[in-house]
């Protein structure tokens, strides 16, 4: 079966401490429980969580939704987004199945990045690794005013911004991510095609602004 890998790259730097990090944890939980009741996603979507602060770590290796266990993470340190992208590239190499004559490979991974600040490491190095791999949709989310959308535009065309990083807004973002994964799963199952642009995703809620 062809899986639809979904990678979440979540900022757990010190500035996320308190309400934002709790909202992110809650968001992941809501995301997973919502997708579990969607038959397309439950059978097709596989989920991995990579967090980044002073370094990047994969807290949940790519796993089917039904077996996903809520990871625990705390907010501290700075914002190694570059390292997170390099780690993502590395994990895609090992976790995503490529198509060969004998095996039908996975669909191209969907990636959702969420950060609330400027990267503190060498972002370009990470981007270079990241760009060498093939991805489906990559959405970068600037949570609050501390994140620079121009920086995120270097990673992907699809950048969204949250006005504030409060729990209601973060929750709205995760709901939209969940709806997007549902859409992506349905598209690959129904029509055998991947989502390629923001226009094919469900319209984002008012809290989530598309950055043009």
């Amino acid at each position, binding site marked *: 079966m062809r899986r639809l890998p979904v990678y979440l790259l979540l900022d757990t730097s010190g500035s996320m401490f308190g309400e934002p990090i709790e909202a992110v944890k809650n968001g992941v*939980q809501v995301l997973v429980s919502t997708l579990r009741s969607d038959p397309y996603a439950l059978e097709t979507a596989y989920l991995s969580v990579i967090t980044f602060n002073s370094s990047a770590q994969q807290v949940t290796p790519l796993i089917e939704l039904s*077996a996903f266990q809520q990871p625990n993470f705390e907010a501290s340190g700075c914002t190694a987004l570059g390292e997170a992208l390099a780690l993502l590239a590395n994990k895609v190499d090992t976790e995503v199945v490529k198509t060969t004559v004998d095996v039908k490979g996975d669909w191209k991974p969907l990636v959702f990045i969420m950060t609330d600040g400027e990267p503190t490491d060498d972002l370009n190095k990470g981007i270079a690794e990241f760009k060498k791999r093939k991805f489906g949709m990559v959405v970068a989310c600037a949570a609050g005013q501390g994140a620079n959308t121009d920086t995120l535009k270097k990673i992907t065309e699809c950048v969204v911004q949250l006005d504030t990083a409060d729990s209601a807004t973060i929750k709205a973002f995760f709901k939209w991510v969940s709806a997007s994964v549902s859409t992506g799963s349905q598209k690959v*199952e129904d029509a055998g095609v991947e989502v390629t642009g923001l226009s094919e995703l469900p319209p984002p809620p008012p809290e989530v602004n598309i950055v043009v």
Partner: protein
Amino acid sequence: MDMLYEKIHNILTTMQIECTEAEVTDFANFALRKLWNQYDKECMDQRVIIENQVKDLQIAIPNGTVGKEYETLFKIPTDLVDDFWLEGLENSGLTCTITEDNTCQIMGVPTNAGTFDILLSYKYKGWIDGKPILQRKFTIAINPDPRTLWKDIPTLENIEYYQPDRDHIYIKVEAINGMPQKDIVAASQRGRSHAHEGNPRDDHFRVEYLDDCGWYLMAVADGAGSAKYSRKGSALACDTAIDHCKIFFADSKKLSDFEEYITTYNSESSDEYRKLLGDSIHQLIGNAAFKSYKAIEAEASVKGIPIKNYATTLLLAVCKKFDFGWFVASFWVGDGAMCIYDKERQYFKLLGTPDEGEFAGQTRFLTMPEIFRDATSFYGRLKFSIEQDFTALMLMTDGVSDPMFETDANLNKIEKWNELYDSITHEVELEDDNTESQYQLLKWLDFWSQGNHDDRTIAILY
């Protein structure tokens, strides 16, 4: 004075401490209070240490699925906890047993989906009556049974190009001179992903047996999921192709020439007859495919929309039993599979190659003009074959071939064809004249395969 205070008074007196009765009472209260606080603090320290240790215990509770047997074990060290029990498990339909050595087994068949908060309550080591019962919270996630999540919403009958959500047929060919003749059974089932949205079935088939000349005609088509009117595309493809073949066979000159070329080619196999036969096949099957394309093009132009809205595959086969064996001619564009299979001889022959591209969703469709533009590739799609006999000639859409074969490479493995045939015959009695088998085949098409919920269509000549 109470006995206790009198005793304390005596002790104090022997210690040569002079005090009044009120002082003794006050002292006793003071001393006991102080000691109790000290005792209580020590107990609490002990408790907090254990509580933290229990909190840090790695207890991995795997997720379950409704209706699926569940079992997990975890152990709490006996040097931390004397006794424990779980609360909140009953909502999930699971139960637990805890043994003397503090091993907890959670088991059962979950009945409800959701994330359940479970409270582990325990008497810590050294607990005595009056001390608090400590608790640790964890959750257990139960997934819904994916099968129950798929809705089955009937397609609205007033939509354009409505076609029923399922279809099936049995073509019984009477025995000739006591010799049983091959029959055709075919079925088509709307995929779960379409049923879930109330969307129509895009697959189509058409099969016929021509009584007067003994030819079997079979067509199966899969309308592209991404094309709006592909259900009409697949229907037009099958119907036009079969109708064309019927017209061809109704022409006695064409029919007799064709059969003569086949018979002569079989005995001589000369270049001349190969060419005559090839031209005839082109007239029959090649034109059938081309007419199908034209019919779809005409429909699209009436609607004033691009033909790609009707994108469909087409697998077409015609065959007849001659005294020297079976002649089969075919045309194939798009994915799916078409194959002659002989179980006894462990033989199979694919009637072409599926058009699956390197990446998903890159299959070719009948509705692409380039299919007919390039003569070499078009001729490559026409095949013919002469077989002594076979168990089954099967045409199927990718809704069947994808879950069964997974990759194109597997279409070339006899084991895979054996598996498919065994899977079918396990539920479908492919006996001569068994008209019931159409319903069995329709039911078989409901087989469960994770992530594979496309429309499924199969036609079998056996």
